């Protein structure tokens, strides 16, 4: 941990603004060996935040209820360790929280804003779309709010109902100028969050609400690089976040029936890694995308259109999308709404047997 920090520290000393991080070495982007403690997603995020606040004295964390630890306990211990001037609660005003974060970032600080649930991000949508994404562009690179990272837990929890379960990533993927990152597991979350915080662009980071071993060091994972987490030859299956664990089960089920699935975790939604997905589809000839958000206008549509453009002659079956239904997120009907393992398995079989 000390050596990683020293490397980071020396790079930091050469920079004026705390948001510039162009010359981080490639080696920092490798996942350290397994051998950490078992933690859930929230403690992994907590570790990442500790490291971020430690390594940069001009980073600030704020949002609703962050000082006592937050409703998901992602921010425990931070206010005690780094002081109330760097880790503080805000009143209940999402638009204000994000706008304020943009201002902080524009002045060269790292602002980590927490939105309590992704469903509450909509009042801040205006600030993100109209201000954060366009800041660097319209000031001719005089100002930028790259130091802004907005974190929000998203996705279904089983009983959240309309306003504690939404997956709003598609709305943000339509905005040029920001990045959207979604980790699938605690280990990924820590590395990706650190990359997002240190990335010189504003990032919206959605955290699935899910246990895994997380290394204790400071490590970053590269943005805009998809990861093939399971190799296969019959069909490419693409997803992100919490949905991946469901998809892994479906892939295991498909394997029992003799279908070999290649499972890809996109990790960063915009800008997304088209090359990796394209290379995989060229190998298999079939594609299936799955996400919790409603199917119409979801990010799966973008992936499908781009891959069809690139691999039209190679495709052996239509691109399948197994997603949430086009209704508001239901309360009692959640199991019917969700793209479950069986729905995905059925679609894999249908696509392979097209």
């Amino acid at each position, binding site marked *: 941990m000390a050596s990683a920090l020293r490397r980071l520290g020396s790079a930091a000393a050469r920079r004026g603004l705390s948001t510039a991080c162009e010359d981080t070495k490639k080696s920092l982007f490798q996942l350290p060996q397994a051998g950490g403690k078992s933690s859930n997603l929230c403690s992994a995020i907590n570790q990442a935040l500790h490291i971020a606040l430690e390594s940069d004295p001009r980073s600030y964390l704020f949002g*609703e*209820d962050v000082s*006592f630890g937050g409703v998901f306990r992602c921010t425990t211990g931070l206010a005690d360790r780094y002081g109330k001037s760097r880790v503080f*609660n805000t009143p209940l005003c999402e638009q204000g929280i994000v706008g304020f974060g943009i201002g902080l970032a524009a002045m060269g600080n790292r602002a980590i804003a927490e939105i309590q649930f992704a469903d509450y991000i909509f009042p801040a949508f205006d600030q993100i779309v109209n201000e954060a994404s366009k800041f660097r562009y319209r000031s001719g690179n005089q100002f930028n709010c790259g130091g802004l990272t907005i974190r929000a837990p998203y996705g279904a929890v089983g009983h959240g109902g309309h306003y504690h379960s939404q997956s709003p990533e598609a709305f943000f993927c339509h905005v040029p100028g920001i990045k959207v990152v979604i980790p699938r597991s605690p280990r990924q979350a820590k590395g990706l969050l650190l990359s997002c915080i240190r990335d010189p662009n504003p990032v919206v980071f959605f955290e699935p609400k899910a246990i895994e071993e997380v290394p204790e060091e400071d490590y970053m994972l590269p943005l805009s690089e998809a990861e093939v987490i399971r190799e296969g030859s019959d069909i490419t299956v693409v997803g992100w976040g919490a949905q991946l664990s469901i998809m892994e089960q479906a892939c295991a089920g498909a394997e029992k029936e003799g279908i070999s699935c290649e499972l890809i975790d996109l990790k960063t939604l915009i800008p997304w890694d088209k090359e990796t997905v394209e290379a995989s589809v060229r190998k298999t000839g079939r594609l299936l995308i799955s996400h919790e958000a409603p199917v119409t206008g979801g990010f799966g549509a973008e992936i499908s259109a781009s891959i069809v453009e690139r691999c039209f002659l190679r495709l052996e079956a239509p691109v399948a999308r197994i997603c949430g239904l086009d209704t508001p997120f239901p*309360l*009692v009907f959640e199991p*019917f709404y969700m793209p479950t393992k069986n729905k995905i398995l059925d679609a894999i079989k249908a696509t392979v047997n097209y």
Partner: protein
Amino acid sequence: MVLGRAFEDMCAQMYYRGKMFGFVHLYNGQEAVSTGFIKLLKKEDSAVSTYRDHVHALSKGVPAREVMSELFGKTTGCCRGQGGSMHMFSKEHNLLGGFAFIGEGIPVATGAAFSSKYRREVLGEADCDHVTLAFFGDGTCNNGQFYECLNLAALWKLPIIFVVENNLWAIGMSHMRATSDPQIWKKGPAFGMPGVHVDGMDVLKVREVAKEAIERARRGEGPTLVECETYRFRGHSLADPDELRDPAEKAHYAARDPITALKKYMIENNLAKEAELKTIEKKIDEVVEDAVEFADESPQPPRSQLLDNVFADPKGFGIGPDGRYRCEDPKFTEGTAHV
């Protein structure tokens, strides 16, 4: 008030037994505000609430059976099980919801108030003096929507009363630390409407203030901002361990329990005897038990209800690849969904 308290306590029991799920926010301690205001309303007056809306629904007249069924997610609930704890709606009783998002209900209430004023002044329905009550908490008073609506209501002199249930805490955020001027009632005059502060633990005082505010609105004199100082005895929701609040503060407010205070007042002033009050409590217990039984026995909603009411046209999902309306295709909801 007693119904509200008994109902909420039963909710907690049911939740821990797994009959109810989701995010449930209980109203214990704040009953005086709901009773004090809503009991003065006519059936045609509207009320808009927050996620802490069970007791507002009960006060407005929604039967306990329907509220309990809604909480259990059954088809006999007031919203047919679609809304759950945080979204209680009732057309019959003019309860415009239950909003999970703070502050979202206030503009809706403002619109409802406008419509009643319009009916009276433009359409000439002279007997239409319906008022709207908007309930929300102290945390909401730092949100943009609140201020926008105060301005609109005062500008257009709408028959609306903004009731702030200041229970000092927004989950774990103390009102004192979140607000530049914690005295919310002062924000009324800034927008040109009267701002009143009242002890929200005393139902008679609340009723007095409410009476005046509602009369004002009915006469067409415009909105009022009422700040009720109250307290919630339980945590923010049933998932909240409630560790942050000072036990001394909790004890202070527990001593001012509105139900106990009213009981004492009634007995001291010979308005009722102990025995009578005990009978009322017993009756309430029966009502709540009956509500639970009814909810238990009610059927779960059918799968096809998932697609209902997304659009006005229930067939609004278009035609599927097989030429039939999608929502009629059993595979659309059944599929191989594993429950």
